[in-house]
C-alpha cells in the first residue's frame, strides 16, 4: 500500500463499517451476552465489552495507519470509532424496537441492556456511541505512539485482560500459598466477584508496561555484556539458565495444582502430536490430514496390550513399560504402511487420501468386525496406570512428568533431525520434489522417514492418552483432532519447533482454560485462522525458510543482471 498524501476518509469509514458488522455478529451469535458474565475488571469491564473494544481498537488502529499526519491519524480513528458506534446504535435500536427473537434468538432485551449500560434506549445510546468512539481514539493513539511504547502498552493490556480472564484459576492456585493471601485478595478482590479488582488491573498494566519498557531499553546492553564475557562464563551462565528452567518445569505441577496441571497435560499431548506433524507437514511439506490415525493406533495398541478388563479376545495384560516400545514400533510401521500408497501423491491429492486413511482407522475401530479384539463402539476399558518405580502414574501431577519427558524427547529428536542431512533433504523436497530427486535424494526413503517419525510421536501421544484416561473410545479419534493439530502448527508457524509450543498453548491450552465458552470455540478458531492468514501467514514464531516464502515480494533488492 502506498502512502497517500490525502486524508483517507473512505478507509476510516470502511473499517468502521467492517468493525460494526463484526460487532453485530458478536452480539447476534450470543457471544456478547455469554461473555458478559465474566468480568475482566470487577464491576467496570466485562469480557463481552472487552471483545467489542478490541474490535474497534484494532479497526481504528488500522484506519490510523498510513494517514498523512498524526493529527489526521487520530481523526481517522475517531471516524472509525464513530461509525462503529453508529452501527452498534442501529443494532441496539432495532433490537429494542422490533421483536426479532423469532429468527435471532440472541436479539433479546438482555442484549440491549448490555449495550446501553442498563440505561435504556435514548440515554444508553449516547453513552454507547461516546464510549466506543473514545475506544476508537485509543486505537489511533496506540498507533501514533513510538513503536517501543506501543509494544509495551499492547503487552500491558494483553496481560491485564489475560489475568482478568484467568482470575478464578489463578486465585484457586494461589490459595495454596497462604503467604500471598493478602496480595491476592487485593489484586482480585474478595468474595465472589470475578476478574481483577480495579486497583489490581491498573497495577498489573503499569508493572507489565514499565518493566517491558525497561527491559527493551536495556536488553541490548545486557546482551552485549554477556557477549563480552569469556567463553566459559557464558557457558556456565547458559547452564545456569537451563538449570533454572528445568527446575521450574519439574516443580510446575506442585505450583499449578490439580486443575492447571491437567490443562498442561492436555496441552502437552497436543504439542507432542504437533511436533510429529510438524516434521511431516512443516519440514517435509507433506500435507497429512489423517494424522489422528496414528494417535488412535498408539492408544489402541497400548489398550489391547495392557487392558485388564478381560473383555477382549486376547488378554495380554502386559506391563506398560513393555508395551510402550511395541506401541511405538507399531506406529512407525503404520506410518510406513500408510505412507507407501501415497508416495507418488502431492498436495491436494495427498491431503484427501490421508484424510480418508484417518477416517478408515476410526471406522475400523468402530466396526463390529474387530469388536472382539478392540471393543468396537464400547472401546477398551480398564487400562491400568503404569507404575514408575513404585509411583503410580494415575494423577495429572505424576502423568505430567511422563508427558514432559515425551515432549522433550520429541523436541530433541526433531531438532537434531532438522539440522542434519535428513532435514536438508526434507526442506529440499518441500521446495521442489522433482529437483530434490534429481539431486540424488531418495524420495521414498526420505518421505517414509518423515511419515514414520511423525507417526511415532503421534503414537506416543496416543499411548499416554490411553493410560491417562484409562478408557478409549473410537470417537475420541475424530477428524477434528487432525484439524486441531494442523491448525496449531499453522498458527505457531509451519516447520518451527517453538511455534508448535506457542500454537499448542493458544489452540489447546487456552480453550481448555475457557471451557465455559466452548460453544464458540470453533467460531473463534475459524476467525483466528482467517485473520492469521491475512495478517501473519507465516505464523507467530515462523521458521526462517517459511518466513521467506511468505514475503517473496519484499525481497532484498539486488543488483539486476541487466
Amino acid at each position: 500500500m502506498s502512502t497517500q498524501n490525502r486524508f483517507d476518509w473512505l478507509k476510516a469509514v470502511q473499517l468502521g463499517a467492517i468493525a460494526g458488522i463484526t460487532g453485530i455478529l458478536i452480539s447476534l451469535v450470543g457471544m456478547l451476552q455469554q461473555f458478559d458474565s465474566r468480568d475482566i475488571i470487577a464491576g467496570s469491564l466485562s469480557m463481552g465489552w472487552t471483545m467489542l473494544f478490541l474490535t474497534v481498537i484494532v479497526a481504528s488502529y488500522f484506519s490510523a495507519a498510513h494517514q498523512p499526519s498524526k493529527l489526521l491519524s487520530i481523526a481517522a480513528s475517531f471516524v472509525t470509532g464513530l461509525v462503529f458506534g453508529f452501527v452498534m446504535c442501529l443494532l441496539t435500536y432495532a433490537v429494542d424496537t422490533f421483536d426479532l427473537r423469532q429468527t435471532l434468538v440472541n436479539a433479546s432485551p438482555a442484549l440491549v441492556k448490555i449495550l446501553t449500560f442498563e440505561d435504556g434506549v435514548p440515554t444508553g445510546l449516547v453513552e454507547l456511541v461516546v464510549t466506543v468512539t473514545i475506544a476508537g481514539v485509543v486505537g489511533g493513539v496506540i498507533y501514533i505512539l513510538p513503536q517501543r511504547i506501543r509494544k509495551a502498552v499492547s503487552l500491558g493490556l494483553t496481560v491485564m485482560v489475560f489475568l482478568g480472564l484467568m482470575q478464578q484459576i489463578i486465585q484457586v492456585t494461589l490459595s495454596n500459598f497462604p503467604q500471598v493471601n493478602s496480595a491476592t485478595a487485593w489484586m482480585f478482590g474478595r468474595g465472589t466477584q470475578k476478574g481483577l479488582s480495579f486497583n489490581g488491573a491498573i497495577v498489573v498494566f503499569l508493572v507489565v508496561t514499565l518493566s517491558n519498557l525497561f527491559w527493551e531499553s536495556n536488553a541490548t546492553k545486557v546482551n552485549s555484556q554477556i557477549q563480552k564475557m569469556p567463553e566459559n562464563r557464558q557457558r556456565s551462565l547458559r547452564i545456569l539458565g537451563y538449570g533454572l528452567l528445568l527446575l521450574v518445569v519439574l516443580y510446575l505441577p506442585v505450583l499449578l495444582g490439580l486443575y492447571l496441571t491437567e490443562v498442561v497435560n492436555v496441552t502437552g499431548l497436543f504439542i507432542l502430536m504437533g511436533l510429529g506433524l510438524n516434521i511431516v507437514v512443516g519440514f517435509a511439506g507433506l500435507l497429512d490430514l489423517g494424522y489422528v490415525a496414528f494417535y488412535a493406533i498408539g492408544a489402541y495398541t497400548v489398550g489391547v496390550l495392557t487392558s485388564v478388563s478381560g473383555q477382549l479376545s486376547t488378554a495380554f495384560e502386559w506391563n506398560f513399560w513393555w508395551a510402550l516400545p511395541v506401541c511405538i514400533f507399531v506406529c512407525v510401521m503404520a506410518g510406513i504402511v500408510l505412507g507407501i500408497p501415497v508416495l507418488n501423491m502431492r498436495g491436494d491429492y495427498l491431503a484427501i487420501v490421508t484424510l480418508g486413511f484417518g477416517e478408515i482407522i476410526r471406522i475400523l475401530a468402530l466396526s463390529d468386525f474387530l469388536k472382539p479384539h478392540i471393543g468396537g463402539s464400547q472401546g477398551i476399558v480398564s487400562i491400568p496406570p503404569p507404575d514408575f518405580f513404585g509411583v503410580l502414574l494415575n494423577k495429572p501431577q505424576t502423568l505430567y512428568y511422563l508427558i514432559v519427558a515425551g515432549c522433550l524427547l520429541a523436541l530433541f529428536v526433531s531438532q537434531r533431525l532438522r539440522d542434519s542431512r535428513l532435514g536438508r533433504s526434507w526442506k529440499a523436497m518441500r521446495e521442489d520434489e522433482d529437483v530434490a530427486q534429481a539431486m540424488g535424494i531418495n524420495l521414498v526413503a526420505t518421505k517414509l522417514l518423515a511419515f514414520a517419525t511423525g507417526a511415532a510421536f503421534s503414537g506416543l501421544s496416543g499411548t499416554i492418552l490411553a493410560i491417562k484416561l484409562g478408557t478409549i473410545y473410537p470417537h475420541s479419534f475424530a477428524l477434528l483432532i487432525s484439524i486441531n493439530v494442523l491448525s496449531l502448527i499453522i498458527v505457531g508457524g509451519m516447520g518451527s519447533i517453538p511455534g508448535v509450543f506457542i500454537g499448542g498453548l493458544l489452540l489447546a491450552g487456552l480453550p481448555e482454560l475457557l471451557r465455559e465458552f466452548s460453544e464458540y470455540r470453533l467460531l473463534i478458531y475459524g476467525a483466528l485462522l482467517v485473520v492469521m492468514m491475512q495478517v501473519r501467514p507465516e505464523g507467530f514464531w515462523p521458521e526462517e525458510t517459511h518466513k521467506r516464502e511468505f514475503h517473496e515480494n519484499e525481497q532484498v533488492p539486488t543488483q539486476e543482471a541487466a
Partner: protein
Amino acid sequence: MASVLSAINVTKQFGGLTAVNTLNLEVAENSISSVIGPNGAGKTTFFNCVTGFYTPEHGEIKYKDNRIDGLRPDQVTQMGISRTYQNIRLFSNLTALENIMVGYDPHLKTGWLDAVLRTKRYHDDEKAAHEEALKLLRFVGLAGSGDLIARNLPYGAQRRLEIARALASKPGLLLLDEPTAGMNPNETGEMMHFIRDLRDSLGITILLIEHDMRLVMGISEQITVLDFGEKIAEGGPKEIQSNPRVIEAYLGRGAATEGMATTSGNKSG
C-alpha cells in the same frame, strides 16, 4: 575416444506424439557436446530421458557401459550424471550454501540415528558437505554469498549457483539445459569461458542444449541437431553450419536453398 554417454535408438512418445524418435547419440569422454534444434525438437525430452525423469519406450541409454534408462532420477545422479534446468530451479527459499549442500547429498552416509545421536559420521559428513559447498561457491565466483537466499541472488549468479549445485554431486557428465537463456552477450561470453573451464579444470564431460549459436559454435566439439524428435545432422561446428538440412530446419526451405547459394558463393569467392 571412449564414449561416456551413448543413446541407442531412443524413442519417447507422449500418446500419439513422438517427442524423440530413434535417436542415436554418442558423447565422447571429456568433450563438450551440444544438442541444438528448433523449439519443440525434443531436446529437453531427451535430457529428461537421460536423467531418469522419463523412461523411453524403446532403445537404450548407457552411461559408461551401464544401462541407465528406467532408473530413477536419484539413481541416475548416484551413477554420476547431473543436470541444470532451462528455467532455473533452485531451492529458492534455501540459502546458496544449503542448495549446494543438498547437491552433495549422494556422498553422505548419515542415517537418522546418526543425526539424532550426533555420531562421528554425522560430524564428518556435515563438515565435508560444508567444505565442499564453500569450495564450489568460490569456484563459481560466489564466495561470500553463501548465506544469501537463493532467490535473492542476481539472475546470472542463480545460473552459476545451479551449476555449482549440480557439480556438488561430483558428476562425470554434466547436462546443461540452456545455460545462457536470458543472458546478455557479455554474460553469455563469461558463461562460455566458465563452461570450458569446467571441462578443463575438473575433467567433466559436458552436454548442453543451447539456442545461442555463438556459444554453441564457439565451444562445442560435437553438435547434434534435432528436428521433430529426429536427428537431422551431426558433426563439428563447421559441418553443421553448412548443412542444408539444418538451415532448412531453422530458417525454412527457401532460406535453405538461398543459404546454400551464399555458402557456395563464399567458398568459390
